[in-house]
């Protein structure tokens, strides 16, 4: 190690970095020390770091509170290496490896509960931005006018960039031009609320990344305060004409990136060699500056958000197209039956499905509802529908057909997706109905006299849930004129503005009045009822209904 690289975290000051090029350096509270740390518990000359051959040592200079190396009190001069932590009173020195800068990560140091330096001034940023603020004196008026000119320039400059990177770069650029710091950084809030350093910059000749204390950042970002920190001992030192070689001598201004929607992050500027420390006028200027930057950042975020939403919308449209494209709109036309079905998709795209397949003297019916929503549900629905079409008509029974569809769906089904379904097969010549309920709402039978009753029979697990399940079917003969209604729970679980459900009772009373209505009228009428009931309440689930009336043999 030729030179020694230190990161210093004084108790009462902002953290900073320092490279020791001399052969020895004395650290203490006194202005006679080479490196002055703002820590009132430090001895005047507390510890010394020195080089012997090519090795660096640390020794205690008989301080009141002694010196600790990696939490061990120092007895005699001891070798220091990168990664070592030297503690003097309540301040810390971290020895860094210049080739591998310590993982300060976000550029924030210290805990969130640490105290702020005594010389910190905090002001509510919104107060500065208040439009009612007027200049009281001519001097203030001139200052205000100057600030407005700067802001105008900043606003115009920030209008151009279209990427976040370019915008952040330009914000720092303007901040350096108008406020003349040695270092600056912009911290932005992530989607989870945590802060990260999005950009930083240093004046030529400065080394290492700028450091800021976590506690300060919290004050600025969480409370919307503008902050001004100056080293309290600075003026005294100037007065004593001591040469300020290095020290925690530093002043800092920070302002929240605030707009009407909240705080996006903060901008902080630090100065060491600036002719004079930052003052309240600098803080005010930075607050106004930051609000201009916040506005542009928000606009940029909104543009990105809009683009993302458009993409998501397209994906939902795709899911919707997959779903609707799978559903038959024309139904088998035979004298013995009258059949119709419809699906009203929810905005979020669920996974309802229906199908009607005629094969010889038999008509197969299917209504299903996939667990979950979105593109995944739509695709699972498409798979289910395809399997049903391919496997059902060739199967010897409804139970066998469901067993085969289930086997395919349950295979490699890591996410445990499933589809509740009601499948039935009607012999149009005899009126015999065989059906399987796989975890689905029961189908209603409405007789010619208006009697409404659910079809009973065994309930099986939903399709896809249990590999190798043997499905149990129910069988019942239909009488001529009987109407079947298959539906999904989107019908009975539709809600109105007061949170009330449409419920099976409303469905039953609707069906009781369906008398001799055609299947299409029954389906359209039901969907209309549900829609009227829900009113302006957004439809949360797909709503599906399938109606079939058996007219009887030789009808």
């Amino acid at each position, binding site marked *: 190690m030729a030179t020694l690289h230190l990161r210093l975290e004084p108790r009462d000051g902002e953290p900073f970095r320092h490279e020791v090029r001399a052969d020895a350096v004395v650290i203490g509270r006194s202005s006679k020390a080479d490196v002055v740390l703002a820590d009132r518990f430090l001895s005047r000359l507390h510890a010394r770091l020195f080089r012997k051959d090519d090795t660096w040592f640390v020794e205690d200079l008989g301080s009141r509170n002694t010196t600790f190396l990696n939490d061990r009190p120092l007895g005699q001069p001891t070798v220091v290496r990168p990664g070592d932590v030297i503690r003097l009173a309540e301040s810390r020195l971290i020895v860094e490896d210049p080739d591998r800068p310590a993982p300060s990560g976000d550029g924030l140091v210290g805990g969130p509960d640490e105290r702020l330096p005594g010389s910190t001034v905090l002001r509510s940023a919104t107060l500065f931005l208040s439009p009612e603020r007027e200049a009281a004196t001519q001097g203030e008026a001139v200052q205000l006018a100057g600030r407005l000119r700067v802001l105008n320039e900043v606003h115009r400059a920030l209008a151009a960039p279209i990427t976040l990177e370019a915008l952040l770069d330009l914000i720092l650029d303007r901040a350096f031009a108008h406020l003349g710091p040695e270092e600056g950084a912009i911290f932005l809030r992530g989607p989870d609320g945590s802060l990260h350093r999005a950009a930083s910059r240093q004046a030529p000749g400065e080394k290492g990344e700028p450091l800021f204390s976590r506690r300060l950042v919290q004050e600025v970002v969480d409370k919307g305060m503008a902050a001004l920190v100056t080293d309290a001992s600075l003026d005294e030192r100037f007065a004593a004409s001591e040469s300020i070689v290095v020290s925690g001598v530093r002043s800092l201004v920070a302002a929240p990136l605030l707009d009407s929607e909240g705080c996006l992050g903060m901008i902080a500027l630090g100065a060491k060699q600036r002719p004079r420390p930052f003052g309240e006028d600098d803080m005010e200027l930075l607050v106004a500056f930051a609000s201009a930057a916040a506005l542009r950042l928000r606009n940029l975020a909104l543009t990105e958000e809009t683009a993302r939403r458009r993409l998501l919308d397209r994906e939902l449209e795709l899911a919707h197209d997959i779903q609707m494209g799978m559903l038959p709109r024309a139904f088998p036309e035979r004298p013995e039956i009258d059949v119709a079905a419809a699906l009203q998709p929810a905005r979020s795209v669920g996974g309802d499905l229906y199908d009607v397949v005629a094969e010889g003297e038999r008509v197969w019916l299917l209504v299903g509802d996939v*667990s*979950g929503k979105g593109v995944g549900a739509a695709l699972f629905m498409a798979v289910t529908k395809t399997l049903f079409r391919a496997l059902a008509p060739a199967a010897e029974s409804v139970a066998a057909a469901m067993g085969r569809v289930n086997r395919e769906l349950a295979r490699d089904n890591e996410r*445990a997706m*499933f589809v*509740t379904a009601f499948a039935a097969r009607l012999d149009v010549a005899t009126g015999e109905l065989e059906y399987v309920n796989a*975890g689905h*709402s029961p189908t209603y039978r409405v007789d010619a006299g208006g009697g409404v009753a659910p079809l009973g029979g065994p309930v099986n697990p939903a399709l896809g*849930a249990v590999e190798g399940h043997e499905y149990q079917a129910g069988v019942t003969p239909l009488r001529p004129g009987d109407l079947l209604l298959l539906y999904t729970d989107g019908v009975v679980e539709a809600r109105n503005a007061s949170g009330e459900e449409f419920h099976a009772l409303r469905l039953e009373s609707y069906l009781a009045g369906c008398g001799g209505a055609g299947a299409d009228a029954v389906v359209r009428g039901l969907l209309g009822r549900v829609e009227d009931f829900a009113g302006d309440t957004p439809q949360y689930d797909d709503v599906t209904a399938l109606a079939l009336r058996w007219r009887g043999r030789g009808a």
Partner: protein
Amino acid sequence: MHIGEERVGGALVIAPEGRVDSVSSTELERLVVSRIDAGEKRLVLDLSSVEYISSAGLRVLLMAAKRLKGPPAALVLCGMGPSVRTVLELAGFLPLFAVEAGREQALARVRG
């Protein structure tokens, strides 16, 4: 959604609260998957604070049961209110789960 978690002996009790619908179930899924991935072998799902469970929520229960296939039962459900029980029953899922009335019985069974 708040999800309670408590370790009792060699078992982990997970207790979701409120509505387990297509939005909140992803949270429950993430938690359950991460615990099973981390090697959890005995899980009790306490549903006593669940007001409503949708099919998306059922999917999470089913997935947990598949991943912790018994016997002896490695996943036990307890504290099921009538509405949650009805949803499980209608989906034909009740026979797929080991179900106990209270947390104590569930813990005894999952340890057995």
